[in-house]
């Protein structure tokens, strides 16, 4: 039988078969590699938590070091109340704060906030995840607080697709380190930390932004302040 290769029937049939074949190959590959990708994402999260603590780790020793430094983890509500008996997917480590932030069906008051309690050099530190919006997409990170519940001892930020060289610089240590020794509270009440453009970052409660990355820098400011306010509600009650 001679097939007319320029006919509509042949073109449609070819396209349909091609799409089905490609679809099956790609979806089975994606499902097959899912466990590996999930493990990579988890190690990366552990590395970010450790990085906020000022602990360097690699993909190989990330999990071991996490076990070594992180002693406890729990979850609080938006009002700063400790949550108990949460299902598995809402436990501190498995809770996806980024997804929760994106999900418009979850009200702001219903969001959950994990706390990772770490022990480093004999003192207790609290690692707190933060999520926000940059210029092009989500930004996120971790902020480590000292055991006075107000002094920042380290941060680590990351982003999905900020401009390399500009907004993407928030993930560099020179920017992250500018938050060190800033305080989220003065005299027992929450005080925001502002990201400034005029180079006055050396003053208290001020951090220098990134030139050319203003919107991303402001996104970091909003993200840190909004989230720290919630955590401080919990810490001020449980000092």
């Amino acid at each position, binding site marked *: 039988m001679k097939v007319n290769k*320029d006919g509509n029937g042949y*073109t449609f049939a070819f396209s349909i078969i091609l799409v089905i074949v490609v679809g099956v190959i790609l979806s089975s*590959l994606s499902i097959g590699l899912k466990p590996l990708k999930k493990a990579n994402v988890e190690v990366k999260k552990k590395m970010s938590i450790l990085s906020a603590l000022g602990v360097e780790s690699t993909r190989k020793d990330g999990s071991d070091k996490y076990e070594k430094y992180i002693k406890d983890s729990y979850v609080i509500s938006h009002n700063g109340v400790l949550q108990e008996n949460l299902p598995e997917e809402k436990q501190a480590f498995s809770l996806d704060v980024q997804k929760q932030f994106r999900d418009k069906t979850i009200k702001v008051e219903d969001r959950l906030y994990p706390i990772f309690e770490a022990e480093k050099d004999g003192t207790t530190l609290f690692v707190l995840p933060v999520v926000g919006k940059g210029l092009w997409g989500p930004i996120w990170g971790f902020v480590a607080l000292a055991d006075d519940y107000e002094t920042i001892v380290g941060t680590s930020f990351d982003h999905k697709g900020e401009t390399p060289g500009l907004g993407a610089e928030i993930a560099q240590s020179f920017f992250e380190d500018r938050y060190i020794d800033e305080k989220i509270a003065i005299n027992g009440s929450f005080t925001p930390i502002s990201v400034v453009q005029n180079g006055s970052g050396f003053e208290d409660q001020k951090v220098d932004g990134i030139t050319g990355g203003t919107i991303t820098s402001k996104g970091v400011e909003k993200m840190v302040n909004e989230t720290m306010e919630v955590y401080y509600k919990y810490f001020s009650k449980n000092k």
Partner: protein
Amino acid sequence: MSTTEEKVKAPKEPLFSKKNKRLITDPLSDNNPITIQVLGICSALAITVQVEQAFWMSVSVIFVMVFGNLIVSLLRNLIPSRVRIIVQLVIVASLVIIVNECLQAFVPDVSEKLSVFVGLIITNCIIMGRFEAFAMSNKPFPSILDAVGNAIGYAWILVLVALIREVFGSGKIWGAAIFGNNLPGEESGLYALGYVNNNMMILPPMALIVVGVIIWIQRTRNKDLVEEH
């Protein structure tokens, strides 16, 4: 009867005939996709800051190119001509997704560094160009050779540019410091003598200039490549 006729018609070509060898060697120099055809320039500018990135980008492009050319060549008599560009796009896109998934699963650090650029392999003009210009009208084996030649022609320029930029821009090769330590306050090696990295090398315009210099050297050596105006 018919079998003997066919034998006479098509004397078997040796696997690596002169013509086939040229398919590999031409794109390496005299018909290089980057320096002569000036295709795939975008990625040559974007990911040549470090050798490691350029290397993995090259590996990804070689994979996509070889399998893409092979698949297109095998299907060349089946692909309906009216939708051939779309079919070629589907093939490149699928191969790129496969590469991206594998990078994410097996070399996550590299995947993070290349980020969006892996996805942009789909738009690399060299690949679509070879599918349309070569694989659609040639047998599978020459198509593979053509793909290998063009992909390596792309790869070696990419790695060379990255090498120049990493050495002079960050003083490193594959992330390892070669001129000593340049941390403020604890300089050693060349940095202790006052050497400073050329930060401009890290910026995209320098990639263009480096590629330009390579083109200049290549055309000085081979006058046939200079276009007449």
